């Protein structure tokens, strides 16, 4: 058996892939290895509860806002669990959802154009693919421009991106004007146009009615998703890269994302069934450990989380059909992320129009120093389901536990199962494809090890 170590480029953070090759030239085993542990859970111990609002976004530079929202949710749930009143206006809820979703759109755009498509330059070098080339390609530059545009929506309400802490228990710190909302609306509108014209090659109304791959290709006037599908079919990546058929979404973002679990069939989410596994984390097990990340299991099973899971638990017809034919292949997993850009933008517009500026931004809750006990914060982040669990005594953090989406998808294995990403590369014959399949999970080692 030959063992090969690959260092991944174009992912968030530093990740290695250890591949074991069998005699037939196929991958027989794979290990996702992440170092660079920073110790956030330990840093939080003994800190004042509200300090977590400032510290936690720093866990990740690309989904820091999701970490902020998970922190706020956890603290607000602490109030509820202690039967202490906490009131949050509809306005504050809508604005938090809008900024969280801006971060998701930003992530998916950058990921598709900066991380995913450049891989195909290796397969099809041509003038056409040069457009996607880092630093020089017009498509590359345009994606970066629009990812910078959408985070302006976060800045309008929250002051800046990355790393704001404008969301707090009880609401938000800002009190936007109607013209601020118009400013955000115009950005979202421009993004929708860009996505319709350049990515999907059709109006969003038409796209939302598309039911399968053939229909998409026949209706699209040509866009980057069409080019991408073509690349996948030519390289066989429309069928490769499949993993376990288990999916999880822990939080609902009405009306575009529904929580749920898929094992063999769709079933109701029971959060008590979520467990971390530490057997192969170097921190807890020097001998068997191979990475600094824990794994996560639901009812003992590994689960995929992220946009594809969200489309399946939300029972979107297009993806139920794609899944039936191609399973969770590289193509389907990537398409689900790209799909989500549009679905979220359309809802963001709707949420923006629903904001009633006359409502309060913030209603001061009772003193957090009276809080005892523990609570969870659940959020859908760019890469999938993010869970924070905080234990508190008199407003001081006793323990803080973080389960990130990348821990579900790329965390360490257990004695029974590899991680979904490790499983997905098995049987592949090309190390480049193995990297690409790994990238289709939107790797973030920063969150993975935190």
């Amino acid at each position, binding site marked *: 058996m030959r063992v090969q170590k690959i260092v991944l480029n174009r992912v968030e953070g530093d990740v290695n892939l250890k591949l074991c090759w069998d005699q037939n030239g196929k991958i027989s085993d794979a290990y996702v290895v992440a170092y660079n542990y920073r110790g956030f859970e330990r840093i939080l111990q003994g800190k004042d509860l509200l300090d977590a609002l400032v510290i936690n976004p720093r866990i990740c530079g690309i989904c*820091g806002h999701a970490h902020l929202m998970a922190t706020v949710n956890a603290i607000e749930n602490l109030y509820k669990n202690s039967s202490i009143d906490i009131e949050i206006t509809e306005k504050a809820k809508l604005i938090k959802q809008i900024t969280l979703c801006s971060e998701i759109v930003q992530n998916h755009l950058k990921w598709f154009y900066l991380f995913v498509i450049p891989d195909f330059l290796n397969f099809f070098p041509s003038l056409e693919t040069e457009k996607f080339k*880092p630093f020089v390609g017009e498509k590359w530059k345009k994606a970066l421009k629009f990812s910078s545009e959408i*985070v302006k929506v976060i800045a309008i309400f929250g002051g800046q991106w990355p*790393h704001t802490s404008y969301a707090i228990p009880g609401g938000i710190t800002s009190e936007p004007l109607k013209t601020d909302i118009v400013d955000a609306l115009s950005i979202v509108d421009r993004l929708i146009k860009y996505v319709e014209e350049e990515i999907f090659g059709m109006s969003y109304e038409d796209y939302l009615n598309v039911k399968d791959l053939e229909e998409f290709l026949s209706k699209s006037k040509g866009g980057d998703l069409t080019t991408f599908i073509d690349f996948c079919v030519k390289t066989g990546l429309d069928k490769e890269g499949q993993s376990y058929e288990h999916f999880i979404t822990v939080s609902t973002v009405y009306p575009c994302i529904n929580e749920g679990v898929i094992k063999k069939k769709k079933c109701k989410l029971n959060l008590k069934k979520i467990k971390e596994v530490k057997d192969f984390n170097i921190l807890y097990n020097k001998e068997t450990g191979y990475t600094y990340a824990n794994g996560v299991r639901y009812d003992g099973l590994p689960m995929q989380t992220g946009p594809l899971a969200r489309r399946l638990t939300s029972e979107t017809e297009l993806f139920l059909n794609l899944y039936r034919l191609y399973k969770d292949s590289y193509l389907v997993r990537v398409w689900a992320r790209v799909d989500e850009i549009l679905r979220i933008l359309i809802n963001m517009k709707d949420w923006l129009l629903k904001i009633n500026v006359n409502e309060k931004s913030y209603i*001061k809750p009772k003193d957090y120093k009276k809080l005892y006990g523990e609570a969870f914060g659940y959020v859908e982040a760019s890469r999938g389901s993010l869970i924070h669990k905080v234990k508190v005594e008199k407003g001081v953090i006793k323990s803080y536990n973080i389960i990130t989406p990348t821990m579900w998808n790329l965390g360490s294995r257990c004695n029974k199962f590899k991680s979904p990403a490790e499983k997905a590369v098995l049987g592949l014959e090309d190390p480049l494809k193995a990297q690409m399949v790994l990238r289709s999970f939107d790797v973030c080692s920063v969150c993975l090890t935190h």
Partner: protein
Amino acid sequence: MKNLVWIQGLTCNGNSHSFLSINDTMLDVFLSNINILYHPMLTSEMEFKDVYKLLLSGKESLNFLVVEGAVNTKKDEVFFQGFDVFEILNNLKDKSDYILAVGNCACYGNFPALYNENVKGLQYRFKDKGGFLGEDFKTKSGYPIINITGCPAHPEWIVRTILSLNFGYDIKLDNLNRPKDFYMYLAHDGCIRNEYFEWKVEAHEFGTKEGCLFYELGCRGPLTHSPCNKILWNEKSSKTRSGMPCIGCTEFDFPLRSKYFETKTNIGIPEEVPLGVTKRAYIMLSGVAKTFTNQRLNKKLEDTD
């Protein structure tokens, strides 16, 4: 074109993403003047090991080495693209014209340094000089490590500093090795709540446009070196403009503080007063200001004339 190589230690990638949020005009100018030989998230043609070889052999010159993330003074602790960051830095430190520490982790160690005592910034560990590269280290250009602080650093602070050096300007550094052009300003400068600050009208809670956040809500604007309200974030706003107190994230002591949303006071007087003012003068000034009533500031902003 001058070469730039961007490496990462213990980081959240926030500075890379901040950098990528630069407006497209600045990005165009940057890319047409600076050759990004390597950035771990962006480069597709070359792997780091090949770039590293070219740099070590001298076949490519290294003009700008950008370091994001904290580093470790022990070997085998922090890795970048399969190499020990400890070794990369030791091998490249004398080959670079300029080394820029981007973000508070690379400058001072920041949060990762709280967890591990061997984790440091490039030339500082919090306020103490003598981080990874020692107190007196200077690059080929004669500059020490240039610290672009912030958690994260603003994209324009990064890009404009590199372009200034590229165009041959001398840049003046402050006593923490930060470019004066940016860090001689305070977060307070340009804050749209300054009228409230002048007349000592306090905001008692969040979620309003009225009142200064300094007296009760922990704002560090008058004590923090940063042009956040001069060069706005994402070209739109800043923390204080959106009602969030400045948390002082461009300063060395950012992660050492606690209770970011409260102002520590002593008999009702802030323990720390605005830079450049004595406590006594500040108390007198506040007292005088409070004896005058500015009618404008007692109303909701929308209701003022």
